[in-house]
């Protein structure tokens, strides 16, 4: 028996947890986009309290992973960035929640 093997020690494996979603900032973005149909950049900035740069950086990673769809347009002369969670993003967050609850289920009170 390998002493460093978490499963052998009776611990649930954590390797299947999506590290991209696990990051607190991205988890918050995913959670907000999960509960709405779509929202713009300002909405997410206000709700999450993130700076423009920080939010942009997280959104780029989520878009690259196929979790968030970013639609850029103009409303009058002002740029408008609408964001929406893709089906893969919704599934990803559900699976993440499931995985986390499985991992944490065994913790003593």
């Amino acid at each position, binding site marked *: 028996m390998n002493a460093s093997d978490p499963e052998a020690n009776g611990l649930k494996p954590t390797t299947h947890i999506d590290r991209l979603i696990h990051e607190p900032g991205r988890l918050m973005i995913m959670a907000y986009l999960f509960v709405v149909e779509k929202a713009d*950049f300002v909405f997410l900035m206000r709700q999450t309290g993130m700076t423009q740069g920080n939010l942009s950086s997280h959104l780029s990673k989520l878009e690259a992973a196929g979790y968030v769809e970013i639609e850029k347009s103009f409303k009058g002369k002002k740029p408008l*960035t609408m964001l929406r969670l893709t089906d893969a993003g919704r599934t990803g967050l559900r699976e993440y929640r499931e995985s986390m609850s499985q991992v944490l289920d065994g913790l003593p009170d």
Partner: protein
Amino acid sequence: MVSQQLDLKQLERAAWRSYHTDGLWDVFLGLVLLSAWVSSLAGSDLLHLVLVVASLAVFALGKRFVTVPRMGLVEFGAERKAKNRKVAALLFFVVLLGVALYIVAVTGIEVLGWRPGRGALTTLGMSLVILVIFGGIAYWLDFPRMMLLGLAFAAAFAGSRLLDSRVTFLVAGALALGWGLALLVSFVRRYPLPTEAGSHERE
């Protein structure tokens, strides 16, 4: 965030409620109450209608030019949309009821053996109806402050009938409007316009 419970319903509710911290509902309903008082001074129902429409325009323009640029654009989920449809249906029913009661009151016709009087019982009953309607809106809109506004409406209505003076609409309207404006100022200070609102230039 990770250490806290990921309560998605709570998150959605908090996001929804943040849109009502602008005080525009209070301003709108305060103006509606004041319009009842102003039109009674002029003795014109048409003026009342015009002022109510103007109050609605203030509400819509405030949302468009004050709230959305500061809070951003969002389309809430299906459950929230269904609740909003219930509120819209309730408001439609209220308007129909109001028109029907107005016709009954003006023509003095009897409906199912009942004719609206100015007695305390009728006043109390109608005040309760107002409270129930506002209660429904407060519940479906997840907006508890609406219940207080309902109380202002019911008190103004009951007071005006019992005291035979529409000054109660002035008092209730001024209170609601003052409170709404204070909330609006606080909202504008708390959420200044983003420097590059909705900009994707940096992405």
